[in-house]
């Protein structure tokens, strides 16, 4: 039996299953089966890879048994750890987990490049260039994703910023590209310390590039690194003459790039702006004072008013998930629906920590996806709503983004909640949002504040509505 034929046909089938799986993942109805289809592609490709053992390099033959043992151990540990951590992680922590797994992929691509380079196995300018470039991008994705993970996980709180930072980073990138060019120019035959310095600097660059970026922008960065890893994998696929890596890597590279652009657009920022401008560092003085005061209301009263409304729109934010109030919220929604109140959810594209993250969190609580609306589909409906309730959201509902040119978030599309007849804002205290911007909505005439932990507020609202009795 011809092993090469078997390997190649397995990869062909795997590439097909990946694309077909991704396609199915792009609709809510078939998404679940999509990931399963792609999963089978992965199993097939990994199993087929063990056929490599039948035909390894002359130099590697004496080490074959050791290498197989190492491969099995590495597979078992990597798989076992990731499987367990993936099963355990809470839905709110999903973004940092995706960042972590993505960084690992980037690291694997960099490792392939490192082996090819230190073993002097790559020949030809194109192969060598792609090996170097893939290694560079992969290493940046690895250390950058780790920083993104640490930041979202609350392990790193500060942001590293100094005035010359962009200059330092620019020089660092220039040095990296020069070393890369040097390696390519010498056909890859340079002493190993050059490679070591190259990869070490690439890792440092990933850290330096990510450190100045604030938590609110992290989703865009994760998505960007996801695209980076895809590209790195595609390039290393060329070096290894492996079409499965080339296709899967490039599909993810382009899909990830588009997703990054979509996310940045939803925040009304360019990707360059996210990467190179120190968002969140702006001072408060630029904003000016907001007139008016915050008017508190009792949770129970707010609940009863919602019960007698005919249309209620809910604008949830990450604070909802932090308070673990999704389930109680859905209970409240069901009560309102029984009282013939029309209830809809309005989701800002960057609600949660990633686009679509809020949808995942609501889905976890059992909220059906057909009462959940994207911003552009529901923004015209706020003026017809009797009550809008904002839970744990802040910047995404700030009308200053439409009106106040001096606001740091000016121009960002926001939910037009302030146009509703009555707005309730459920909020822990009088603090500012994730980006540190003061919110004009809280001071508006038609806004009342419900202070407290979101979950407790939901419970009070539910109790107040239930105490009215079942009369319709």
């Amino acid at each position, binding site marked *: 039996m011809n092993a*090469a034929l078997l390997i*190649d046909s397995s990869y062909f089938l795997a590439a097909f299953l*990946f694309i077909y*799986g*991704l396609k199915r993942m792009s609709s*809510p*109805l078939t*998404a679940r089966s999509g*990931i*399963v289809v*792609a999963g089978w592609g*992965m199993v097939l490709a*990994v199993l*087929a*890879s063990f056929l*490599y053992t039948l035909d390894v*390099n002359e130099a590697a033959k004496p080490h074959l048994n050791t290498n*197989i043992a190492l*491969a099995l151990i*590495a597979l078992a*540990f990597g*798989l076992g750890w*990731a*499987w367990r951590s993936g099963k355990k992680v809470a839905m709110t922590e999903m973004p940092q*987990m995706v960042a972590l*797994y*993505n960084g*690992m*992929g980037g690291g*694997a691509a960099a*490792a392939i490049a490192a*082996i090819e380079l230190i*073993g002097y196995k790559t020949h030809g300018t194109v192969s060598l260039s792609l090996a170097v470039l893939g290694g560079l991008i992969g290493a940046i994705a690895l250390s950058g994703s780790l920083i993104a993970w640490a930041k979202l996980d609350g392990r790193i709180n500060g942001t590293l910023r100094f005035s010359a930072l962009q200059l330092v980073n620019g020089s660092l990138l220039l040095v990296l590209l020069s070393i890369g060019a040097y390696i390519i120019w010498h056909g890859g035959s340079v002493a190993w310390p050059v490679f070591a310095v190259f990869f070490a600097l690439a890792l440092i660059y990933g850290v330096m590039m990510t450190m100045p970026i604030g938590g609110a922008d992290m989703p865009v960065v994760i998505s960007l690194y*996801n695209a980076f890893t*895809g590209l790195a*994998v595609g390039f*290393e696929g*060329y070096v*290894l*003459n*492996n079409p*499965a890596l*080339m*296709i899967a890597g*490039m599909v*993810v590279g*382009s*899909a990830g790039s*588009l*997703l990054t652009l979509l996310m940045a657009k*939803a925040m009304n920022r360019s990707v360059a702006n996210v990467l190179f401008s120190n968002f969140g560092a702006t001072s408060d003085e630029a904003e000016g004072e907001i007139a008016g005061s915050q008017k508190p209301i009792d949770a129970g009263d707010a609940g009863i008013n919602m019960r007698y409304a005919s249309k209620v729109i809910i604008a949830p934010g990450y604070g909802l998930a932090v308070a673990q109030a999704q389930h109680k919220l859905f209970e409240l929604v069901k009560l309102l629906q029984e009282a013939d109140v029309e209830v809809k959810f309005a*989701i800002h594209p960057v609600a949660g920590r*990633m*686009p*679509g993250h809020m949808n995942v969190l609501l*889905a*976890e609580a059992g909220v059906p996806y*057909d009462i*959940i609306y*994207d911003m552009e589909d529901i923004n015209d409906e706020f003026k017809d709503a009797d009550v809008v309730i904002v839970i744990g959201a802040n910047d995404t509902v700030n009308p200053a983004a439409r009106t106040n040119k001096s606001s740091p978030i000016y121009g960002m599309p926001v939910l037009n909640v302030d146009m509703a007849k009555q707005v309730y804002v459920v909020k822990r205290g009088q603090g500012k949002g994730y980006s540190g911007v003061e919110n004009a909505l809280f001071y508006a005439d038609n806004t009342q504040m419900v202070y407290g932990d979101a979950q407790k507020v939901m419970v009070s609202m539910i109790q107040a509505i239930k105490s009215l009795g079942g009369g319709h």
Partner: protein
Amino acid sequence: MDYTTTILTGFVALYIFMLAAFTGFEIIGRVPAILHTPLMSGSNFIHGIVVVGALWALLNASSLPEQIIGFLGVLLGAGNAAGGYVVTERMLQMFKPSTKTPKE
């Protein structure tokens, strides 16, 4: 049977890259925002295929440094693939329509 692996080089490789890039672009371009997070996670899983490349590199390693780096590569790649799969599957499992079936 007489079969040898085709070396994908030059324009053949370029064609593969181009078509794959368009495929990724087309698939994501039509996705509703509610699926962006699972899809990012799903594409994250798919580049876990890098584990296959790392396996090849490790199996062909002929020195200690290569074995160490290869080991790390397979470890990381396996983590990417398995972790990506588990979290994506968990997320997608939760998406359910309401009692009445939605009309798309």
